[in-house]
């Protein structure tokens, strides 16, 4: 699902409240599991990406995302409908992932396997793509957890610095710094595959 289709942003980059989401949240809070399912359908991929980015492990990330959705359902009474749903949910996702990371500190990190190819690719291109993703995965894994979260929320999910500051409960300046340092560490991993990068944009 395209992010632009599911969120509405103001000129300043801060999301507007989506009345449909508010209705789904209200119905889910009243016990309508189907309405809850619509929220999971809308935010499932985003929640899993953020949790996977934080944890560096796809299974743990998915478990954390699921924990977050169930936690959100339990706590829908605390959701302020005058504010957009996405950042509120991403805060829960971030907390669930960090909590799981603390619990799994000892466990060895399992590799994030790249998802299915986004386009048809020949053997050489596919090998390059996999190598690039492996390098990116390794680069992501080496980043401090908050930088991983900030870069994922900013560059992948399109949240603004202000929203990420709200999600992570840190000052905006800290978010800018985390995005800056995270990008600076990750960009060199893409450089050897510059051709791929230019081709796919």
């Amino acid at each position: 699902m395209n992010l632009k289709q599911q969120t509405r942003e103001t000129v300043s980059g801060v999301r507007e409240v989506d009345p449909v989401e508010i209705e789904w949240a209200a119905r889910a809070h009243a016990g309508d599991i189907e309405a809850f399912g619509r929220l999971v359908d809308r935010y499932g991929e985003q929640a899993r990406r953020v949790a996977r980015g934080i944890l560096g492990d796809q299974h743990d990330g998915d478990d954390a995302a699921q924990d977050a959705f169930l936690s959100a359902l339990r706590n829908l009474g605390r959701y302020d409908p005058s504010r957009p749903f996405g950042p509120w949910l991403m805060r829960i996702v971030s907390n669930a992932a960090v909590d799981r990371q603390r619990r799994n500190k000892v466990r060895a990190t399992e590799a994030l396997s790249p998802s299915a190819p986004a386009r048809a690719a020949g053997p050489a291109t596919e090998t390059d793509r996999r190598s690039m993703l492996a390098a990116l995965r390794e680069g992501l894994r080496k980043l401090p957890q908050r930088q991983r979260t900030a870069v994922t929320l900013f560059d992948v999910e399109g949240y603004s610095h202000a929203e990420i500051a709200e999600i992570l409960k840190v000052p905006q300046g800290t978010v800018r710094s985390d995005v800056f340092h995270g990008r600076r560490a990750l960009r060199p991993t893409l450089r050897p595959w510059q051709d791929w990068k230019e081709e796919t944009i």
Partner: protein
Amino acid sequence: MKADSPFNHRPDRALGKALRELLTPTDHDAFVSHVVANARHEFERPASSGPWDVLGAWMSPGLAAAALLVLAALVGLQGNRPVERVTIDDELSATAQNVEQRVLMYGPAAPDVDVVLVSGY
């Protein structure tokens, strides 16, 4: 400012695209079904049970526990029955009239001949 400058305040499309490809799952529908099923399991069960339901649920294990307790008590009683042994008190209190056969048979010292004769054994 270069497009890929770390200072750029706009999302980095190339980095974002690569990260998205790395992190995006391929089984979205299965995930949604799984989460919804878990939510249904957690939130659609009966809100509360009446006291009789609770007591009824407790009845079977309660009966089993009571039966075990009775069995244990019986075994305990059986095991704690005093073993008949000849003690020094038995010997001292043995007279010709009240001496028992076991005192004569198992006592550490040979009984007095008068006691044996009068006891009638």
